[in-house]
């Protein structure tokens, strides 16, 4: 199964591989216009909302004003972080779709750090501690899939998916423990204690929701961009493209794959910490909100480059924001996921055609 997965990952890599910029850009525009037209038509047919309304509402909801833009960026932040981790892993042939579970446990790790430091600690210390703890928590939740892949050859695609399903119950259990549970008796759904005010990430764009967590994503993008130009990324490419050659070259592919899975899980954990400190402000079952899955799509869409991944994350976030505001017109929100799925499939199709050439 390891080989199967390696091969698939190769294909993903190819799917993300490049040709000339202008060609790519112009085709991307054409495809985007095509999808948009199709979606507008579908919306019109099924819900009766006319394309003009759909479009204006969509644009307003996603980038219409400073608040909408900030919302889009806030949404893009964890998505970009998960996506960056997935990008790195995919290059090495590892497909980590366990982001949901890893985020949940990352959030638990982060909140433990916050609680341990207490409300007296300075913000910066809390933030750093929470992000580190989030990364550790996320990575910890990938240990079992990594070990199974390394020792039993179990596909990490399936094992991480199963870990997500397991995490749903685990999180509910954890959130009932006195250590985590919100003691407020009025709170009757599973959610953790609110984090102290000192731990909340500050807003960096007045009068909007844009919190400092976006800087973490930007830093991560810069880090990945630098990494991409380092010998380390060449080694990961070799591991992804031919583990046998890599093994002969002293690269220890199995260990590398293990490490990549853990690293991408750590990215998911960081995303969770940022989400906790900037948006949720307590551990909830909704903290992940599908980001763990969408992050992988973003990585595919972003063409395995850090900048591309972040751009794709912003695009997806805008899509979600716009789609949400469409609901005020009576368009079901499942249209958003539908569009995301179609976009990714179209990208895979485009990559396939490029490969065939």
């Amino acid at each position, binding site marked *: 199964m390891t080989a199967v997965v390696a091969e698939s990952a190769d294909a993903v890599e190819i799917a993300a591989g490049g040709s000339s910029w202008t060609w790519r850009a112009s085709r991307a525009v054409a495809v985007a216009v095509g999808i948009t037209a199709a979606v507008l038509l579908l919306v019109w047919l099924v819900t009766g909302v006319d394309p003009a309304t759909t479009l204006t509402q969509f644009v307003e909801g996603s980038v219409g004003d400073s608040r909408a833009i900030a919302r889009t960026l806030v949404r893009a932040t964890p998505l970009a972080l998960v996506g960056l981790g997935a990008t790195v892993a995919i290059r090495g042939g590892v497909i980590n779709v366990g982001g949901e579970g890893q985020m949940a446990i990352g959030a638990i790790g982060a909140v433990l750090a916050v609680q341990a430091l207490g409300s007296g600690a300075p913000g910066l210390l809390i933030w750093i501690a929470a992000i580190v703890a989030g990364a550790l928590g996320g990575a910890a939740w990938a240990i079992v899939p990594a070990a199974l892949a390394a020792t039993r050859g179990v596909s990490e695609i399936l094992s991480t998916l199963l870990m997500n399903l397991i995490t749903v119950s685990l999180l509910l259990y954890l959130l009932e423990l*006195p250590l985590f549970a919100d003691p407020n008796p009025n709170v009757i759904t599973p959610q953790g204690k609110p984090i102290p005010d000192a731990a909340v990430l500050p807003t960096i764009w007045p009068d909007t929701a844009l919190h400092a967590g976006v800087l973490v994503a930007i830093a991560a993008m810069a880090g990945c961009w630098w990494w991409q130009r380092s010998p380390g990324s060449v080694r990961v490419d070799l591991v992804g493209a031919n583990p046998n050659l890599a093994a002969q070259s002293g690269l220890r592919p199995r260990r590398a794959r293990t490490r990549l899975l853990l690293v991408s899980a750590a990215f998911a954990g960081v995303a969770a910490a940022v989400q906790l400190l900037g948006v949720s402000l307590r551990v909830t079952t909704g903290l*992940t*909100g599908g980001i763990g899955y969408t992050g992988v799509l973003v990585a595919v869409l972003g063409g395995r480059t850090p900048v591309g991944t972040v751009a794709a994350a912003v695009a997806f976030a805008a899509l979600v924001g716009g789609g*949400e505001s469409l609901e005020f017109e009576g368009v079901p*929100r499942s249209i958003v996921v539908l569009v995301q799925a179609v976009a990714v499939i179209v990208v895979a199709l485009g990559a396939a055609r490029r490969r065939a050439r």
Partner: protein
Amino acid sequence: GSDEAAEPAEVAETAATVAADEPADEPADDAATDDLSVALLVGGPRDDGGFYQAMVDGLEDAADADGAMEVTVIENIAEGGDAGLEAAVQNAADSGDYDLIVAHGFDLVPGVARYAPDYPDQAFVTSLPVEGADNVAVYLTAFEETGYNAGFLAAQGKLLSGSDGAVGFLGGPGLPFEEQALFGFEQAVEQYAPGTEVVSVFTGTFEDPQLAQETATQMFQQGVVSLWNQQAAGQSGVYQACAATEGVVCFGNGIYSEAVSPDVVLASTTSDYGKLVPLWTERLRAGEWSPAIDILDLTNDGTSVTDATAAGLEALPDLQAAIDDYRAGAADLVVETMPTEG
């Protein structure tokens, strides 16, 4: 902190008075017939057959009764996670199109807490108290009392059908509010059918009808003769199991339960959010929105039981009389609340 924990109890006490004394504020001007536009935000599907649908139906019926009120429902918000929940609140407030934003669900409260202060002229109402925001009103549900209603129905189901057996409580993921309901349920069963065994099973989700169906089937096999469930999309499965089993009776958890399976559901518990709407519209039209707290409970009929359905009257002819009695004495019932852990 411990002071946080202590506070809500006090709030709740004053709240009861507020609710009882309504209307507290006198109308300020002649705006009584102003058209009102209300946005209702819900985390799950509007037709979940549970918590969300109860509010949707309540608001829409109240809007019909009001005649000058328009409701826009934004559903499934929780799909977008916490970010989506907050964005939905901000979106609605930002649009400026709504006189009132109803953020229905505990998951929406943090979003309200965060954004309500940014929009001081916008009226909000939500499911938990929010500190430091004068424009946020609150409504609370006494879940132990909902459960008590359910326990009453389940006990009657057993008594009136003359069966000898247990009563059942079929829950979802086992969330704290379900535990509260179960706490009330057990009190009522002890009250109305002393000594009856209560079998409770949580399927792990509100949404899986097959799992709910199989759970109910097993509960019947274990000797449950009267079953109440707290499922959402899962409840149709419960009623399928009920219909397929001889000699058992089932009750629903909202008026929509009867719509799901009118031949099976004999009566339901109900949380009538519609009761809240006249309070809200009056305050809005008076231009006097306040951080009031309203509680849906047995005393104000906010949580209650429905009339027996046609099927209910046929299966258990004495059911309606029992329900009438129960409602008449409801205001005097004493339901213990569940002690909080820790």
